[in-house]
């Protein structure tokens, strides 16, 4: 018992340290975002602001339009994308989980191949621009993230391990069609895995800035992450221009204030941080069920 207590203490200390490692940078970002304009230049980063000032957030509210717009794009893409992605992924995974599905092996292999090999940036770009002509539309932000091979396999495992084939048989004996079986029996039983994969997909859509970088030109279609990335990187690039080419960039856009960037980062993190607690209970369940063979 005593030994157990000690291990508990040790584990707890370990976890507390780990949590601190995760929380401290975030705390620092928050503190920088509320420190006064010159405080950073004077004192550098600190864990408690020496001059408290909400100027960055005031600035964000004052110049809110592009941020709200990119926020809107992010939310729309995430919501539409997640719903569509779950629908398609679960449909595919369900098909693959059925022993009586004819081309099961071939289709699995097809999914597996997409997991192992990617076409590379250029073919990817060519498909969406030259073949589908989706550049600079909201669709291009949604479609590439719809299906992940990995998610399909997690779901398939869940279906095969937690839903007995006899359940499907009995539903069909009672006269349920394939669709009815799927919607009324399978999906309600699969909430844990849907929530788990849903969270993966949400985070994936929310954090995706690269698709915007490649395909989006109109600034009204920037999502939040790309908007932030862009603001940051533009400033850095201007700096590198000045360094590399020895060109006078003094008349060009001034760099965004450090605390402004931090405030933006906080804004970008909050929504996902809020989603997580709601999905967490499913998340744990989904993983255990996936892990234990039933």
């Amino acid at each position: 018992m005593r030994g157990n207590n000690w291990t508990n203490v040790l584990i707890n200390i370990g976890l507390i340290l780990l949590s601190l490692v995760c929380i401290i940078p975030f705390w620092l970002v928050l503190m920088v975002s509320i420190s006064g304009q010159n405080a950073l230049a004077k004192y550098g980063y600190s864990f408690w602001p020496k001059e408290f000032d909400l100027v960055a957030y005031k600035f964000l509210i004052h110049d809110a339009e592009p941020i709200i717009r990119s926020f809107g794009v992010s939310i729309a893409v995430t919501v539409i994308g997640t719903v569509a992605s779950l629908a398609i992924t679960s449909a595919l995974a369900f098909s693959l989980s059925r022993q009586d599905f004819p081309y099961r092996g071939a289709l699995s292999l097809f999914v597996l191949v997409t997991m192992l090999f990617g076409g590379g940036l250029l073919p990817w770009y060519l498909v969406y621009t030259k073949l589908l002509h989706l550049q600079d539309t909201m669709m291009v932000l949604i479609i590439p993230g719809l299906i992940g091979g990995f998610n399909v396999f997690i779901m398939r495992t869940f279906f095969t391990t937690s839903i007995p084939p006899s359940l499907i048989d009995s539903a069909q004996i009672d006269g349920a069609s394939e669709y009815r079986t799927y919607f009324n029996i399978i999906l309600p039983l699969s909430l844990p895995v849907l929530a788990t994969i849903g969270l993966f997909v949400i985070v994936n859509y929310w954090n995706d800035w690269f698709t915007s970088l490649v395909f989006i030109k109109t600034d009204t279609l920037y999502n939040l992450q790309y908007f932030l990335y862009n603001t940051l990187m533009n400033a850095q690039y201007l700096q590198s221009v000045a360094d590399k080419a020895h060109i006078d960039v003094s008349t060009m856009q001034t760099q965004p204030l450090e605390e402004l960037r931090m405030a933006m980062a906080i804004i970008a993190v909050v929504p996902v941080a809020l989603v997580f607690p709601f999905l967490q209970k499913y998340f744990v369940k989904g993983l255990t069920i996936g892990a234990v063979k039933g």
Partner: protein
Amino acid sequence: MRMRRGSIVLSSLLLSMSLIAAGCGSNNSTNNEAANNKASNNKTNTSNNAGTANTATNTAADEKKALDPYEVVMVYPDPNQSDLGTVQAAMNDYLKKTYPDMNMTVKLSPIDWSAYSDKLNLMMSSGEKFDLLWTANWMNFETQVNKGALLPLDDLLNEYGPDIKSVEGDLLEGARRKGSIYGVHVHQELGNPQGVALSKELVDKYHIDLSPLKSGEFKDLGPILKQIKDAEPGVTPAVGPSFPLGAYFGSGSMENITGPIGLDQRDTNPDDQYKVVDAYETPRYMELAQLTHEWYKAGYINKDATTPGIDIWKKFQAKTAFAAIGTDLEIVKDMKIGEPSLMANKSTQLGMDIIQVPLNIDRLHTSKLSATLQAISQTSKDPARAMMLLNLFYKDKNLLTLFNYGVEGKHYVLNNGQIDVPAGKTKDNVGFFHDNQWQLGNQMLNYTRVGEDPNKYLNYEQFNEQVKSQSSPLIGFVFDSEPVKNEMIAVSKVQSTFDPGFQSGQLDPEKELPKMIDKLKSAGLDKIIAEAQKQVDAWRAANGK
């Protein structure tokens, strides 16, 4: 059953494999074909256009043959401007009114700085149609030339670029690669002065005598920094990231070829000025590194100098900085080493007076001539028209002003002949604040902004004369890094681990510099030196130097 499943798996495997293979294969071949078609189209286009233009000039006396309407797409890096459409329309109106015979419109297609190289790369690889693009030797110009994304411009320049040629002349040679000119140099200052920027408030407060700096030596700054260190405990005497080893060493002592390789212009062997050496092994580098290290130990230098993204000017504004060392300075009239002057732009920008003292003035380097270029894309459907448009930016002040500052009255007003934002507007809400004069055309045609020296461009011209009079022995030489590509990567890795430490004085050069040189040698530095020497010698023989 077993058999069947096995065969299904096998056949599906084969099928998917072949699909993949077919997918890749056909993609590639269509790409190549497309590229080839494009190229040949271009060629026929060029010759067609050249033909029509030729006949146009030939028959100009009789009757001008009208060109087909054409839209020239201009790609360049810039953040989004909300009023871009207005400016583009104004440019097109102006083109239509002033140059009806050219029958062209422009489409402005700016790409964010953060995405510029990636997007441009994709546009080139996918064969997207565009005409003029901005590029630079530090922005993949060499790669673009190597992969054939840019058109050779010599013929186009001869035919459609008379004003470019008269403004640029020999300076165009800086972008000549493999025998052809691939980029048109933007007319701008040809070098930079480097030196010290100082807070005027503190200089005045302690009646600091700046005359020792007339020597042009950084070490004479030491006593001045000490004075501030002793008198003002809250102030960092010298703030970085840029320190003597950065800009000053590179420009003042070395004729850089690639990475740390170059000709030593100062000590090693002044008689043989074509001997390629390693910058880190010159006595001058050791001297400056030691000086910086001493300053660091004495507490003259900020501890966070190596933190990325640090903004030294913020420290000036917060009144915690006295001097910035080795930074690029503003070009003023009658620039002389050691001669203090006010940094007009910086002072307006920061809202406090900054004094600059130049300690080095660049020579004319080849690299400066490709530091900002306009090029024509291989995917252009009408390169001749692209060149005609580019030519206009070297002679037509109105067109250039539209591109740089927008529409008069809406995006700018003239205030005593200088550009100002309209009353009640700031540069953040005016809708168009582009202001990258160094991206296009003849900079000297531009207006100056309120707060700048109205004679800025006259000063540039004067400064250019000074720079040109001292041209580098290697002017016109471009290093081909292809044979030593891998060594270059390895060397730059070593550099990037040591450089910040030396530049900010945090590493002791006595101990660390030999270590670095060892590592550089094992990374293949000597091979690069040998290759560079070989190329320099070949170039000398070919050019009779």
